[in-house]
């Protein structure tokens, strides 16, 4: 029974605004009004066996805002607690939650110490779901929970998606580039859609947020801008240090109640909350450097045995135009990376401060971050400012309010890169020999002349006078690259900038009229204002592109996301051991996106501004989506051991089309805790679930569209219409169905935990943007429901506390996931990709299968395309999975090579704690089973008849080697199979050592805690892939289908030193 003065001091009807004001007052640190009849609770929390003082344990009175976190010594103190009897709970991931009764008396401090047991399988861990918080034992499907505080501490990453890396089974996280400020590709349990977004839904404190990458057509615009796959990421706006935990809802079996937005999974982020008690401050500074692996090699066409770079290396190619013209006797090289290396060590600084506390009825958490990191290329940097203010208030014993407010400012500058000859890597790696003058003897005149080598050779070949080109080597003065004729300095003048401000907030109210009836209300708002500027300044000295005259493109985007949600839950006992719980809810969501674009070309001066441009354009667009869903769930629970539930959601939305109306998403599941106790096997739980969720097409995807264009007539321009896309009245949402089952096992006194899940997921009515026959007269693809994609696999998580001695602990975590992806229904194959038709969606093959003819030497010794009815030899796809090995399309003799996404992924983590004050942590992760397209080498092999050294390699007999001839043949015909390569990799992702200062030191320094960390990231890569980095993707972080490297920046190493102070 709570003291009644709660309701008297702040009536239940108190307006929320008043509560906010109170919270603000609390945040400002003003003393709370003195209230009589108060006491305090204090104590210390340690781990059983080791006696380790546990840091960051949540200690709280359930159902109230009274609570706090333990400090570096494992101590806690909650003040301002009204007198009375309470139940105090201590909870932290990795240990079993524990409750103890406590009696608070006026003016006294009640002492309660906890000794927590390690829990390999924490059945009572609380998991946030759409129907409210639930204990893990109730969940019929696997939901991974990540302690973001621990991960952020260990890695000091600035990217929230990186917090997921290697921390949850079935979750695939992959960065597309080594440039700072870009995000990651996050996929859960494979690729479940062909054409709709595969990005999981992100929810922060109940608010659905904008999480799509900002990689629209803004970056392929008139002119010569191109930043390739280095897209800006909305998830990057967030600050990992503000996050308490992340829950990963993996598939339809678990996400059915997220309805038409749940098919790709849901990532539920909970930010840190305050707890009533003394004010606690934390300040943290990270300093370090991003370092590119700098093994750049000068190369020469006559010394090409090690031409192919090792992972992490960038090699400037020896492109031998003389060889190209048949003048193979003379070779010249130039390596721009040797003469003018643009790479640098990028300084990283990240400062975080936070405060938490509260008094009486309220609590607060405030956080501020300033981060500034520079990439390894000159104009790549990111400057972030994050601010968070979270408040909690209990206006009555039955009402709890919490307010979450996050502000982000994120400015990112990206370099020109990827598929871009005018980018740093294009200029550096495709440099031509002739750019450097040489001195040589003219065979005609006998005089010594300074000339451009290629021009000289060509003149000799054509009989032109050789002195024509004396001393005249374009670009020689500034080490310009071949492809663009521009220098690194000129590349650096380009500006690809994002400026962003964002507010993400939510208000959550919980009203508990009775012990068995709980109502929750959420209002979420996410506002993103971004402005992108892509500018090439005026550079009259550069004979290249419109950029020499100035070119600017400036899209501004505003995105608003509003979430309103309400649920009510009632628990009805049906007997002494049997309960029934009903939850009903409703959720409304609205997204609007406005975009305004101005662009200008040709400037009279050096300061590009649209209003000064000779030619300029403006356009705008507006897109809106709304959805309304109702859901209901019923759950029977018997003896706290057996849980059986069924649920259903009905969704309606704004998408137009006769089949895009109300959709139904049911789910069923059961959880059985078969064993719970002591012995060899401590815990055994079986679970199984089936569910359905969906993915919606866009609002206008079903309707026919025509374009309105400016058309030039004789006298003036006029508006004209043009066919754009036919409609599809029959378009439906795609539907994901998943069957999942598994078990959780803890044994050996809870020191070994094993979680196993098997899932079988089918996405039916898969929405595909299908090419139409061009003869239908529509240039755009049509959205159609064709086919089905299946994803199935298993996930294993193994947690072990290998050693738990007083001065030494060692724990391990191994995660492994398998995913078998297949397009199980598709009438006709869809071909696309990589500049030709090297990929296809085809029934019986994985999503986006790589296909290419095989090139072999025929019996006559000449290269040829191997017909389908012959068996591959040396040059075949030697690692092709069994049953698809023989797949060959007789139309063009294309054979299946592999898939772009991994079949296996996983991680290995280990933590050693020495003498309680030294912690060593390492994270290794891997992906396997995927192929990668080495576009850099393929491009060099293809253009201008082939310019890679491999293609000009001559054997001892003076003839081209077999390899050279095969590559010449394939390069000349765009047969790209030779560059579709297995790309399995393993990486030593993180190494960390942390020193926690002992109490004697902290007391001397008059702080509550102090630690110093040293962190290294991306330290070692193991792979057989012969390109730069098997993890990158020149197509960007949002692209699942094409995984390729094309002048893409490898992911750099990062070294950090961190100091962390609690006071």
């Amino acid at each position, binding site marked *: 029974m709570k003291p009644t003065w709660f309701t008297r001091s702040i009536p239940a009807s108190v307006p929320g605004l008043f509560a906010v004001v109170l919270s603000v007052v609390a945040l400002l640190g003003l003393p709370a009004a003195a209230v009589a009849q108060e006491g305090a609770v204090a104590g210390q929390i340690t781990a059983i066996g080791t006696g380790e003082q546990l840091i960051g344990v949540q200690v709280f009175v359930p159902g109230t805002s009274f609570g706090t976190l333990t400090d570096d010594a494992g101590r806690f103190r909650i003040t301002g607690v009204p007198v009375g009897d309470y139940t105090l709970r201590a909870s932290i991931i990795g240990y079993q939650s524990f409750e103890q009764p406590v009696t608070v008396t006026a003016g006294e401090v009640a002492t309660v110490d906890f000794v927590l047991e390690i829990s390999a399988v924490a059945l009572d861990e609380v998991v946030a779901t759409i129907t409210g918080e639930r204990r893990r034992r109730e969940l019929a499907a696997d939901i991974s929970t990540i302690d973001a505080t621990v991960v952020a501490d260990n890695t000091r990453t600035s990217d929230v998606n990186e917090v997921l890396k290697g921390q949850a089974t079935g979750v695939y996280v992959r960065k597309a580039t080594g440039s700072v400020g870009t995000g990651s590709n996050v996929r859960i349990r494979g690729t479940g859609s062909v054409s709709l977004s595969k990005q999981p839904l992100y929810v922060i404190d109940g608010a659905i947020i904008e999480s799509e990458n900002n990689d629209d057509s803004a970056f392929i615009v*008139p002119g010569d801008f191109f930043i390739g796959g280095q897209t800006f990421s909305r998830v990057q706006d967030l600050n990992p240090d503000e996050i308490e935990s992340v829950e990963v809802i993996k598939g339809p079996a678990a996400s059915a109640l997220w309805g038409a937005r749940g098919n790709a999974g849901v990532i539920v982020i909970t930010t840190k909350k305050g707890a009533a008690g003394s004010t606690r401050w934390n300040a943290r500074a990270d300093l370090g450097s991003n370092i590119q692996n700098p093994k750049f090699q000068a190369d020469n066409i006559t010394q090409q045995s090690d031409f192919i770079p090792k992972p992490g290396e960038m090699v400037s190619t020896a492109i031998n135009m003389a060889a190209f013209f048949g003048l193979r006797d003379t070779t010249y090289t130039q390596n721009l990376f040797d003469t003018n290396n643009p790479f640098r060590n990028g300084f990283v600084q990240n400062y975080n401060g936070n405060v938490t506390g509260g008094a009486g009825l309220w609590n607060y958490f405030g956080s501020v971050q300033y981060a500034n990191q520079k990439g390894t290329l000159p104009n790549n940097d990111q400057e972030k400012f994050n601010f968070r203010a979270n408040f909690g208030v209990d206006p009555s014993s039955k009402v709890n309010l919490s307010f979450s407010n996050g502000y982000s400012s994120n400015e990112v500058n990206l370099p020109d890169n990827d598929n871009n000859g005018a980018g740093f890597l294009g200029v550096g790696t495709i440099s*031509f020999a*002739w*750019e450097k003058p040489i001195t040589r003897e003219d065979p005609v005149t006998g005089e010594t002349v300074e000339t451009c080598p290629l021009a000289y050779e*060509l003149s000799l070949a054509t009989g032109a006078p050789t002195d024509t*080109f004396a001393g*005249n080597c*374009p*670009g020689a003065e500034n080490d310009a690259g*071949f492809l663009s*004729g521009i220098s690194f300095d000129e590349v650096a003048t380009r500006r690809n900038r994002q400026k962003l401000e964002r507010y993400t907030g939510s208000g959550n109210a919980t009203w508990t*009229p009775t012990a*068995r009836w709980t*109502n929750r209300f959420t209002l979420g708002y996410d506002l993103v204002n971004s402005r992108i500027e892509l500018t090439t300044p005026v550079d009259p000295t550069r*004979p290249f*592109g419109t950029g020499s005259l100035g070119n600017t493109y400036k899209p501004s985007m505003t995105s608003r996301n509003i979430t309103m949600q309400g649920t009510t839950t*009632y628990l*009805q006992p049906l007997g002494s051991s049997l309960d029934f719980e*009903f939850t009903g809810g409703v959720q409304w969501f609205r997204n609007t996106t406005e975009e305004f674009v101005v662009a200008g070309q040709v400037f009279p001066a050096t300061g590009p501004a649209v209003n000064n441009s*000779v*030619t300029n354009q403006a356009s*705008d*667009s*507006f*897109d*809106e989506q*709304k959805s*309304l869903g109702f859901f209901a769930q019923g759950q029977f629970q018997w003896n706290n051991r057996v849980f059986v539930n069924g649920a259903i959601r009905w969704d309606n*939305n704004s998408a137009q089309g006769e089949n895009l109306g109300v959709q139904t998403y049911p789910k069923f599941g059961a959880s059985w805790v078969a064993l719970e106790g002591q012995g060899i096997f401590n815990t055994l739980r079986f679970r199984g679930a089936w569910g359905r969720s969906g993915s919606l097409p866009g*609002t*206008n995807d079903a*309707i*026919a569209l*025509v374009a*309105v264009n*400016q*058309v*030039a*007539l004789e006298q003036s*321009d*006029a*508006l*004209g*219409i*043009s*066919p754009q896309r*036919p409609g599809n009245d029959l378009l439906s949402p795609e539907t994901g169905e998943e069957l999942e089952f598994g078990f959780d096992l803890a044994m050996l006194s809870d020191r070994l935990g094993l979680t196993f899940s098997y899932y079988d997921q089918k996405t039916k009515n898969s929405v595909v943007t299908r090419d139409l*026959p*061009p*003869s*239908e*007269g*529509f*240039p755009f693809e049509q959205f159609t429901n064709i086919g089905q994609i299946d994803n199935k696999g298993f996930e294993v998580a193994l947690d072990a506390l290998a050693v738990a001695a007083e001065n030494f602990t060692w724990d391990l975590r191994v995660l492994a996931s398998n995913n078998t992806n297949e397009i199980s229904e598709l009438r006709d194959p*869809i*071909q696309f990709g990589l*500049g*030709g*038709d090297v990929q296809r969606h085809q029934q019986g093959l994985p999503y986006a299968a790589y296909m290419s003819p095989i090139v072999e030497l025929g019996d006559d010794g000449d290269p040829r395309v191997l017909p389908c009815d012959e068996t591959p030899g040396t040059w075949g796809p030697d690692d092709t999975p069994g049953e698809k090995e023989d797949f060959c399309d007789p139309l063009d003799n294309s054979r299946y090579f592999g898939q772009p996404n991994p079949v296996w992924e996983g991680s290995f983590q280990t933590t050693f704690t020495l003498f309680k004050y030294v912690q060593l942590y390492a994270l290794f992760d891997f992906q396997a089973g995927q192929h990668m397209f080495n576009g850099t080498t393929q491009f060099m092999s293809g253009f201008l008849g082939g310019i890679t050294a491999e293609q000009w390699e001559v054997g001892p007999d003076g003839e081209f080697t077999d390899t050279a001839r095969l590559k010449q043949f394939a390069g000349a015909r*765009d047969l790209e199979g030779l560059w579709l390569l297995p790309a399995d990799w393993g990486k030593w992702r993180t190494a960390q050592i942390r020193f926690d200062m002992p109490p004697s030191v902290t007391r001397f320094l008059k702080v509550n805690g102090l630690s110093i960390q040293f962190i290294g990231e991306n330290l070692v890569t193991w792979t057989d892939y012969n390109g730069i980095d098997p993890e990158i993707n020149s197509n960007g972080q949002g692209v699942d289908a094409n995984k390729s490297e094309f002048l893409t920046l490898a992911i750099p190493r990062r070294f950090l030193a961190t100091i962390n102070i609690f006071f």
Partner: protein
Amino acid sequence: MRNRLGLTRRPWTGVATGLAALALVLSSCSLDVFDPDVVSPEDVSDPASLDVAVTGVIGDLQFALDDYVLFSGLFTDEFILAGTFPTRIEIDERRMLFSNATHNDDLYERLHVSRFSADNLAVSAQALVGNPDADEDLVRVAIAQGQFAGAYVRMLFAEAYCQSIFGGNNEEDPSFESSPVDPDARMQGAVSLFQSAQASATVAGLSDLAAAARVGEARAQMFLGNYAAAAAAAASVDDGLEYESFYSSNDPSQYNEVYAFTYFDSEQLRWTVGNGLLTTRWNEKFAFFDEWVDIGLIAVDVDPVVFRAFDGSVTEHVSLQLIYPPPGPLGEPQQPPSPAGQSSPIFLATGYEARIMEAEAAYRAGDLAGAAALINSRITTGDNPHGKVFAPVDFTGDFASDIVEIGRAYSAGMWLTGHRLGFMRRVLRNDGVDIYVTGKPGSDTAFPMSKQEVDNNDNVSQACTSGPPWS
């Protein structure tokens, strides 16, 4: 009131009431959305939007013609490629791969959009005849314009493609075809539609359009080998006819692409003119290069710093200055912007073309002297679209050499207008004389049907996809 478990009924009532209230509130939030930048076909199907549809058809033809001039120019060596894209190199070398996505995505698709748009306009405008809400004059214009554009695109399909098919899988398209059509049948369709366009344009009072349709019909008849019919169609066309496709400097998407791809500072000289020297891998030389340099139609700038080509390899760059003159004197670096270039029109049909076709028909009928006189009256007097004085033709009676001279006469008035591929191909088809530039790796004479078409059209089971050479 309590139930047998000792609980009040109130929570259940509250649950239901609360849910109902919340549902009611949220249900009142409309799911209707407003998207102001979406235009659907229904928005423009009423008679009041007919003028926008007519303009759209003109724009679609312009867009298609732009690409057609570029790719057919590469194929016929009006242009050579100084760039590095393999798919463009394939075209330059006349060895197109069936899967050439650049070609599929651009030219083939643009031509089909233009054809569909034109046919759609002609049919829908015809349906408006007699509709009191429709502007009668505009309806006539729409019919004529739709028929002309439809005929013109059909002619281009016949000239450039080994096969073509209309309508895809959409049987509701009035032009739907159940199997690919060969160039002869396609050109017959063009002739028929040009004749309809002549009649419709005359009714609409569009004399220039009617004349252009006659030129088009004549060009189509030439392809079919009906030289007398061609001459008859061309005879009534005025000497001064210049029916053009217009472009604009207002927006990069409206630029004349020939200009854009060859202009000094826009597309990095990826297209240029072969001078037979060092610019490309095959040392190609435009057939009339020397003469046109002499008379000032092609300017040569020898400053390799100023006129360095895209790949840096060009030491003697040839700048295009025939139809797209720079503002400065020849030999000077072009100084953008040059609206005269960006917005330069491309001739669709001219009186000059009509005269040369008449001359060719006369030659083929055995009147060599008459043919030469007719041609020379235009090319040696400056009475041609370029206003330049060309060397006279002098027919020897050797068809293989004389037809090259006739081709020179066509090019003297229609260079970079998409005419030369049709001429070269019909000479090969009708006469067995190959005047394509030889010595390249490939020997294609036309484009293959698009792979995207073959992959997605249920009605294409057998198509010209296994070349080259395409014929």
